[in-house]
């Protein structure tokens, strides 16, 4: 959304995202897709090589992209998948997840009660 606003204001943008699925559905001027856990668009802390590789690819896309282009990078996340799935999550569930979990619990209680 912000990318579209900036482009409309005359700035060229490139967006690095863990969710190219949304970039495709919403329409983003230029997108780099990375298969990293949330909260890590440029990789792991201290991993200068990966951070620089993602940025260099972003700069290439900035020069070459056709409008709406999505380029996906082939970079594997080095952590065990089960561990990685837990590791990026907040220490306590976000307000919206908390609300959904409470709703589901209430529904279950209701079903069990009837």
């Amino acid at each position, binding site marked *: *959304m*912000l*990318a*579209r*606003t*900036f*482009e*409309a*204001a*005359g*700035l*060229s*943008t*490139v*967006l*690095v*995202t*863990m*969710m*190219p699925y*949304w970039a495709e*559905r919403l*329409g*983003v*001027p230029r997108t780099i*897709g990375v*298969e*990293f*856990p*949330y*909260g*890590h*668009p*440029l990789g*792991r*802390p*201290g991993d*200068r090589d990966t*951070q*620089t590789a993602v*940025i260099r690819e*972003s*700069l290439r896309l*900035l*020069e070459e992209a056709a*409008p*709406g282009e999505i380029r*996906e*990078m*082939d970079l594997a996340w080095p952590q065990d998948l089960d561990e*990685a*799935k837990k590791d*990026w*999550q*907040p*220490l306590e569930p*976000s*307000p*919206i997840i908390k*609300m959904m979990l409470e709703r589901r619990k209430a529904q279950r209680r209701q079903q069990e009660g009837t």
Partner: protein
Amino acid sequence: MPVDSFKFLPGSIAAYYRGLPAQREEPLPFTRLSKPLDECRFALVTTAGIHQKGVEPPFDTEREKREPFWGDPTFRRIPRDVRQEEIGACHLHTNNRDVLLDLNIALPVHRFAELEAEGTIGSLAPTGYSFMGYQMNTTEWRERYGPEVAALMKGEGVDAVLLTPF
């Protein structure tokens, strides 16, 4: 290898996200790069919800806790020479541990300073910008805060922007 956007999400949440409606608006705004990279000035924008401690206040997460469908739509300025220990983070949807270790995973100021020094890019602007991610309603971004940041960037002579949703 196509990127799996849902790889790191628990199954139930992935299914919920996949089902959310999305409206693609046409036409897509697009500004071609007007000069070579080594003449361009860059700005960095993230939705990591970080701020510079002691200079600007954190985002309003108390209201988000009370109203889970609300997100603080304002932004914070992060100077390019910010020190890691000055970074504060309060994103409620991710673990902030890693960005508190290395802000370059979200706002790569040091990587861009290196690219500036080697002459790959023209320069990195003095100021970067941080928003709070996970906004269900982007009206205020679109109508107020997005245009405000665009104007601030243009005021610093910015040509191109790297965005990192968090």
